[in-house]
């Protein structure tokens, strides 16, 4: 389908999120939309998919006809389907039921027929999706696959994907790209929103770059990476040299620990982590990193073995006991687990101080908040509620909430969905903590990030944990193979 956006404007109060954007996407194109956080990518896509309405003089033209899209249901009727960064499915229900929910009308749906459709579509794209399995048992990557075939099944001719490669493994990404490349053959249009240069370069037929709400320009292959970066940021940015850390006393020592949940078993892990060290956890989503992380923070009990923090036995203790001993855990789901929607930044900083006494010292809270907002470069005021901040600023706010001093920081996807500038900033802050004697353990599905910032890496595959791998002795290829389940005999010797 041919999509034409004409003079799209969108104001949120005083913020001008889209400034007169004109974009023409011919049928059968994979169009990239590139830009840093807050550049207006999501707003533009939400306008096209009916989640929000643009200002009144904006025009959306599909196959030459001007249309008004008032809701996501409208959009899908026009053939526009959007795959969100966080899949909008219904986890406690079956795959099949998720299909039925989006179906317009019909009191008694034909479940058998739909199950057949799902199997057929899944086969076409080489996905393994069981219509009868429950959505909460799927990985993020599989939930994406579910959404894609669901949208196609509903008749989408334009597929919008918002940051689809965050949170999925390299293998799942490959499969996703293979799928997307098949779609233009069927005269479908794909709009791929990302801030990852290599993804956009390897996939898209043309790329539009947004900056601060404006369309800066469009590029076609062969792509010039430096040109992209200049257009996105207006200046050149590099990650900088990797710096090895100075290590000190042992912070965390895991002695033969075993973990278990409904899906996975991890057996007999032995690791010692020293002050100043950064440990990266690599692996496909759901390979056991999450369990490991939660065990290290006391959010989940071990089924065997011993955990010591600075020589003190904390096996079987709760998170609050770990926290007192200097462990902080920053979850990936910022608004669900990390921050409290409805409360202001000031409220958060006050709470994080573990205040004693009865009456709130508002003046002290205010100045504390102003202080942190400045030193963590948060775009917001002390009275801003956390849900009014952008993702990057929420992440900075979470970092600003870390207590002091700390001996161990556990981070789930600390930079997921953030632009390069924010990533560099956040890691600079974290490295400061390391210099002050904290150890860091982090999960990331971005291998470059793992290689860039860790001193040692633990690779997870289906509940197996590798011995700690020195970062300077490994490569993307080796890690990628381990994550995919290859080459485990030598690396996994002790732990498997």
């Amino acid at each position, binding site marked *: 389908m041919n999509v034409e956006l004409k003079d799209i404007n969108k104001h949120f109060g005083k913020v001008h999120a889209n400034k007169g954007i004109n974009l023409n996407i011919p049928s059968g194109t994979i169009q990239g939309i590139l830009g840093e956080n807050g550049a207006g990518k999501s707003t533009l896509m939400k306008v096209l998919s009916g989640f929000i309405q643009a200002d009144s003089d904006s025009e959306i033209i599909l196959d030459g006809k001007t249309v008004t899209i008032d809701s996501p249901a409208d959009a899908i009727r026009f053939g526009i389907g959007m795959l969100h960064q966080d899949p909008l499915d219904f986890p406690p229900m079956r795959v099949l039921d998720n299909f039925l929910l989006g179906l317009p009308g019909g009191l008694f749906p034909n479940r058998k027929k739909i199950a057949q459709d799902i199997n057929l579509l899944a086969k076409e794209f080489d996905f393994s999706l069981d219509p009868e399995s429950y959505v909460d048992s799927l990985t993020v990557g599989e939930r994406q696959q579910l959404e894609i075939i669901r949208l196609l099944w509903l008749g989408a001719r334009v597929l919008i994907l918002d940051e689809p490669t965050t949170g999925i493994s390299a293998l799942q990404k490959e499969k996703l790209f293979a799928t997307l490349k098949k779609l233009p053959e069927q005269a479908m249009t794909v709009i791929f929103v990302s801030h990852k240069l290599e993804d956009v370069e390897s996939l898209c037929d043309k790329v539009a770059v947004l900056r601060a709400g404006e369309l800066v320009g469009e590029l076609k292959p062969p792509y010039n990476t430096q040109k992209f970066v200049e257009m996105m940021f207006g200046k050149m940015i590099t990650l900088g040299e990797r710096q090895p850390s100075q290590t000190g006393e042992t912070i965390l020592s895991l002695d033969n620990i075993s973990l278990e949940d409904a899906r996975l078993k991890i057996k007999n892990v032995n690791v010692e982590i020293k002050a100043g060290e950064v440990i990266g956890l690599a692996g496909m989503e759901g390979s056991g990193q999450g369990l490991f992380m939660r065990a290290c923070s006391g959010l989940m009990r071990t089924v065997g073995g011993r955990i010591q923090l600075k020589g003190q036995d904390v096996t079987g203790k709760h998170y609050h006991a770990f926290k007192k001993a200097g462990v902080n855990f920053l979850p990936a789901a910022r608004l669900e687990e990390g921050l409290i929607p409805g409360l202001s930044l000031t*409220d958060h900083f006050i709470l994080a101080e573990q205040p004693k006494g009865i009456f709130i010292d508002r003046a002290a809270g205010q100045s504390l908040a102003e202080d942190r907002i400045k030193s963590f470069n948060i775009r917001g005021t002390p009275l801003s509620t956390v849900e009014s901040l952008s993702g990057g600023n929420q992440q900075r706010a979470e970092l600003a909430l870390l207590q002091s001093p700390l001996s161990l920081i556990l981070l789930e996807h600390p930079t997921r969905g953030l632009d390069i500038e924010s990533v560099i900033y956040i890691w600079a802050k974290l490295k400061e903590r390391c210099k002050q004697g904290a150890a860091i353990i982090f999960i990331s599905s971005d291998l470059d990030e793992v290689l860039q910032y860790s001193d040692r890496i633990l690779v997870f595959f289906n509940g197996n944990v590798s011995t700690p791998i020195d970062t300077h002795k490994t490569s993307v290829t080796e890690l990628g193979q381990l994550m995919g389940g290859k080459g485990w005999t030598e690396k996994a010797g002790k732990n498997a």
Partner: protein
Amino acid sequence: MLKGRLGSFIFQLIALALAFGVVSLILISVGASPLDAYKNMFVGSVGSVRKFAEVLVSFVPLLLVTAGLLITFSSGLWNIGVEGQIVLGAISTTWVFRYFIDSTLPPALIISLAILGGMLGGALWASLAGILKTFGGVNEIFGGLGLNFVSTALTIYLIFGPWKRPGVASMSGTVPFPDSFSLPQLPDLRISMWSLGIALLAIVIIYFILQGTYFGLKIKAVGKNFRAAYLLGIPTWQYSLYSFLICGALAGAAGAIQVAAVYHRLIPSISSGYGYLGLMVAMLINYQAIWAVPVALFFAALNIGSIQLPILMKLDSSLSGVLQGTLVLFVLIVEGARQKFMKKA
């Protein structure tokens, strides 16, 4: 103009007008004059000092219950069990009075003990719902509803069993207590300045807890995001329990005052539905303590004003309940419409 406080106020007025409009239609449909009905309700509630004193008698327990519910709503809990907590407050107060019935202690001390006993009883009953919630995984709505039925049954059992009147037990309740066990009342009026003072003190304290204390901030954090509050280091389930205890104590105080200042005995319907009415007031004021006093007073006035309706106009006095319920619904609908409207604007 439609944004901010003024706009919100205008929308509330629209809701009020709509509620009166719908109730007027109902009245017209049964052949009654809405204007007469409203006039009678107005005169019946504030037409004389005596009537206004009655309004205050109804206002006191309603305000106490609302104050307590503001805490449980803030911590994200739907304390439907508040009705039973009032009842257990009344039962506990009755028990303390019975215990000291022949005592030579000063009555003021006994009354204080009785009211404290009522608060304790309400708090303990609330803690049952809290424990069921935190340790048993029973949603507080179901737990509270179940406990409400138990509390009603317990009242009936006591009135017809162990605490029955000498001779024959009766639905009119237990034997009235001596006058010395009554909270001092204003001459010729049924309202006690003491109970009014307790209720106003309660709402002021709750306002300051929620606005200015670390405790209140933690309660709100738990209510808005249980999981994040835990990760921030707040002992979450303890705070849930504290909020149950506080609400239960205030509901218990309402029950205690029903016994010590209004009925002077235990009667079967001692809670008079103030628990459910308090839930409506809390929803109507959108959990803002500052509005509790005027709205609770308005609801109490509707309650008292409608008492004369059956005699004057052959209308049922439940008209006040219809009006209160309609008002809550319209305020919620109009607020929803306002937010949608603001989003588009």
